[in-house]
């Protein structure tokens, strides 16, 4: 890998995830988060070169939800800007690309969505092919169940493994104050919860939740002035696969595997197991096991630490869940993770996904030291 520009995460803020923030619009939820992220970096809005937002109109139940975000992101005087209809982790990726192109030195990345305005199960049905798949009435839980079934049918895991993975995430999540679910549980308890769609039980799935998130990125030279412990981006890659559920092997994630391999190669790491912390955006335990298989990591090995935050099972605010994974690795490597901190962590992997059945995946490798000298 040729030498790239060192870019770091220097700030991250989020609201605690709740089922419904009754008193605030998505824009109002975003405002305090942007303020907090900038204040913690000690930078005024004039000190930010670039801004990029991730949201989806359908989740907000109206067109142009992101336009209102301009006001709270501080786009006055006018600022260079973009909005992606994607999880904000992909927005962070484009901010990183702009820094590689030398087009900016600092950027804020926000994710927002008012999931409680609608029914995510119905909204995400509308993401499927409108001619052949959406009319079947598939929703994300039923497509996830198809994927989990394919995974179990391959013999890659047992039903008990699903319960164990869910319980580990849930119990990790108790220590993370930003989570929506913070009650301890057991694999046995979750395995007895009612079916959502077989083989996925209700206890294996995250609740519907909403939040707002803001990350600050800065290139070398600026990053050190904004943060005592910048967390440096060592590698990143993202890949999409076909959506058509019958056209890919749902028991594996070929796109995740390729993205992870490329991100690790950019980071100069031989294998995913070389990191200390992995944060995965897995909305059910089968997804987590499929991703870990793609990474070549054994979840029972105890190292790396997988989802010390509790992962997406404890809080899944659409459009921010992925950025929170990257934000969590920032917290871990900069000593900001509090009670769920992993001692001595210096390298981490963060993932985000989009679409049904892990269709689109991004992997980040970050470290407490600069990647390129």
């Amino acid at each position, binding site marked *: 890998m040729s030498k790239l520009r060192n870019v770091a995460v220097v700030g991250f803020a989020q609201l605690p995830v709740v089922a419904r923030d009754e008193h605030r619009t998505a824009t109002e939820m975003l405002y305090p988060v942007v303020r907090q992220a900038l204040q913690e970096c000690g930078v005024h809005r004039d000190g930010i070169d670039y801004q990029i937002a991730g949201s989806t*109109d359908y989740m907000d139940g109206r067109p142009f939800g992101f336009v209102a975000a301009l006001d709270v992101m501080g786009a006055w005087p006018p*600022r*260079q*800007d973009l909005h992606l209809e994607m999880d904000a982790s992909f927005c962070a990726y*484009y901010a990183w690309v702009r820094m590689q*192109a030398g087009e900016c030195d600092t950027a804020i990345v926000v994710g927002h969505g008012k999931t409680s305005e609608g029914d995510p199960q119905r909204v995400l049905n*509308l993401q499927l092919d*409108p001619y052949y798949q959406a009319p079947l009435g598939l929703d994300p839980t039923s497509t996830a169940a198809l994927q989990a079934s394919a995974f179990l049918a391959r013999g890659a895991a047992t039903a008990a493994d699903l319960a164990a993975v869910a319980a580990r995430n849930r119990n990790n999540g108790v220590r993370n104050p930003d989570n929506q679910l913070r009650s301890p549980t057991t694999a046995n308890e979750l395995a007895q919860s009612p079916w959502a769609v077989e083989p996925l039980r209700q206890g294996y799935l995250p609740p519907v939740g909403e939040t707002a998130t803001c990350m600050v990125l800065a290139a070398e030279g600026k990053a050190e002035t904004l943060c005592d412990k910048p967390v440096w981006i060592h590698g990143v890659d993202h890949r999409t696969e*076909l959506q058509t559920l019958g056209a890919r092997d749902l028991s594996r994630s070929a796109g995740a595997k390729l993205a992870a391999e490329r991100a690790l190669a950019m980071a100069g790491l031989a294998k995913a197991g070389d990191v200390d912390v992995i944060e995965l955006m897995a909305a059910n335990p089968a997804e987590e096991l499929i991703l870990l298989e793609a990474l070549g990591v054994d979840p029972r090995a105890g190292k790396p630490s997988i989802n010390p935050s509790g992962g997406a099972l404890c809080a899944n605010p659409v459009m921010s869940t992925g950025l929170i994974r990257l934000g969590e690795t920032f917290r871990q490597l900069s000593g900001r993770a509090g009670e769920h901190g992993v001692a001595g962590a210096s390298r981490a992997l963060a993932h985000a996904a989009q679409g049904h059945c892990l269709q689109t995946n991004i992997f980040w490798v970050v470290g407490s030291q600069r990647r390129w000298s």
Partner: protein
Amino acid sequence: MKRPVAVVGVGQTHHTTRRSDVNIAGLVREAVDLALRDAGLEHKDIDAVIIGKAPDMLEGVCQPEQFLAGALGAHMKPLLRVHTAGSVGASTALTAVTHVASGLYERVLTVAFEKQSEGNAMWALSPNMPFVAPLVAGAGGFFAPYCRAYIARTGAPAHIGPLTVVNARDNATRNEHAHLREPMSLEDVMNTPMLWEPLRFGETCPSSDGAIAMIISSGDLAKKGPRKPAWVKSGYSYAEAMWVPGRDQVSPKAGQVCAKHVYDKAGITDPWNQIDTAEIYVPFSWFEAMWLENLGFRGVGEGWKAIDRGDTKFGAHLPINPSGGVLCSNPIGASGMIRLGEAALQVMGRAGAHQVEGAKTALGHAYGGGAQYFAMWIVSSQE
């Protein structure tokens, strides 16, 4: 820009009220195939795909890029989806430019589309927001007051809007892709019903189905291609807040700042004389006069005079929208990229019957939101 970047292929569908012969994926694929063929490339030559479109409610598919991954040839590639309201087509192409400029990608396919016949744009563009009185008047109802404010400020005579349409329609007769290709006289336009004072039915963009795709390439590979590329000299996207008291909706600061940045990077100090043609985003007639000022082509209060003198007609000093522009074709999400693509075709010398003779430097421009999002590029026949 960190390294030279060029447009090596442009593919555009014809734009019309209803493309019932193709579904959404078919429409997008048609543009992609045309762009690849134009560049003499195949899907295997493409490193990433950047797609844009306006609100998903226009077709009723949430994040349609997920289901379009196959039609886009994006399987196992990076795929990003941009949405910056009306400016999206332009900001999408600029996102692709940055990908190539960074050195991380050699060739990026960028695509924009809208299939308005799948839904109802008036409904989809009439959001009902908390604490904001619903206009339920679509984009025309939203922008008509901006046009009235421009007229009040400048004292522009009432025929300027209709005259802009006469020019646009005349231009579209030479563009085989345009949706509305029938010429209109000043009287014809004036006789159409008034929809939103001062905008008549004839002064309003159509609802179109259409798509465009471009191949953005590194300069090194562009030089090896079969055709003369269009060199991207500069390109930026700016946005400004909605509710700032100091905002000027008639000549938004974001548009001025973006234009200045784009001109500075391209070495343009006198846009009126250094730019040979411009494709600018004019969905409603009066915006041409407004943007002529906002983009620095004419001084404050002077934009309408250039139109009145005929300076912006085809074959005149600065031909504006030789393609016919948004007034003659508006597949919303694609319209911004069509402006950039048409500008590229002009400097490549491949704009066909609507080619501006000797065009070497061109501006492509789009705006969106409440005149808050601006995205533009300068392309040149010279590296």
